[in-house]
């Protein structure tokens, strides 16, 4: 598994799509310390300051229904990983958000490129509010971070490796 790290990037999904189009191999992971234009579905912005864990994975050739399945499974994988590592009780808001105590701390966005009727590439992007100390006023009541919930700094690299490993294992079962 190759991990390409950036200090800052417009969006890890955009970079992953660009790299995949140009032949970068599946299971390459693009991770950035912050995103300038992090986004969710329909262009909704995703607050992506330094401290969070933002990454995208180029998925192997699959079909669109597998892509949908892995999106849903990724939410469950994030929830399970955070529960195991930090003894928190995350809840999944189907299909792609993960909450702690009713507040969102993780969003997942899969993007597919279909040429004609063939799925050419898929990338799955995951944004996790890990070491975020505080949120802007408009997000304070609806967002949280692992650090806020545990009162301690967490290791983003360790969380990333555990999640990627689980996604890879899950993908083999599709």
């Amino acid at each position, binding site marked *: 598994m190759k991990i390409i790290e950036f200090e800052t990037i417009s969006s890890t999904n955009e970079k992953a799509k660009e790299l995949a189009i140009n032949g970068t191999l599946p299971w390459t992971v693009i991770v950035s310390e912050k995103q300038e234009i992090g986004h969710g579905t329909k262009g909704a912005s995703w607050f992506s300051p330094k401290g969070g864990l933002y990454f995208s994975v180029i998925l192997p050739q699959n079909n669109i229904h597998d892509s949908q399945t892995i999106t849903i499974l990724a939410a469950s994988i994030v929830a399970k990983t955070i529960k195991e590592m930090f003894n928190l009780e995350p809840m999944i808001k189907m299909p792609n958000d993960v909450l702690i105590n009713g507040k969102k701390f993780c969003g997942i966005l899969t993007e597919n490129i279909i*040429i004609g009727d063939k799925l050419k590439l898929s990338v799955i992007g995951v944004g996790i509010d890990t070491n975020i100390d505080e949120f802007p006023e408009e997000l304070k009541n609806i967002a949280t971070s692992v650090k806020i919930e545990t009162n301690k700094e967490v290791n983003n690299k360790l969380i990333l490796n555990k999640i990627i490993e689980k996604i890879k294992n899950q993908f083999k079962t599709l």
Partner: protein
Amino acid sequence: MELKINIKGKEYIVNVEENGNEVKVIVNGKKHVFNSSTGIEDISFSHSPSNNNHSKEIKASIAGIVSDISVKQGENIKAHQKLLTLSAMKMENEIYSETNGKIKKVLVKVNDKVKEGDILIILE
């Protein structure tokens, strides 16, 4: 099956389609048809469907909501140009044209719900 082959710096995109005894090998849009029962003597050449005048329908690969339309009726488009985006279960599916062509009709609007197999755009 699509292959990218680089020979002395020149890139060839090769698609292979098999249908019974007939094997189509499309190299950079030019189609070569082989018959596996008679062998290489039965080679015929023809242009890719991308260059013909038949209408082509762009269908929804999955049920979802049209979240963005990037083209309009009458517009000339190029192969690999983005046509529209379909949001499905929080997945964004960007649909690109396979061929050069012209938009004959856009059958959907932003926020329309579509089922798998619904026709979204007709190309000419």
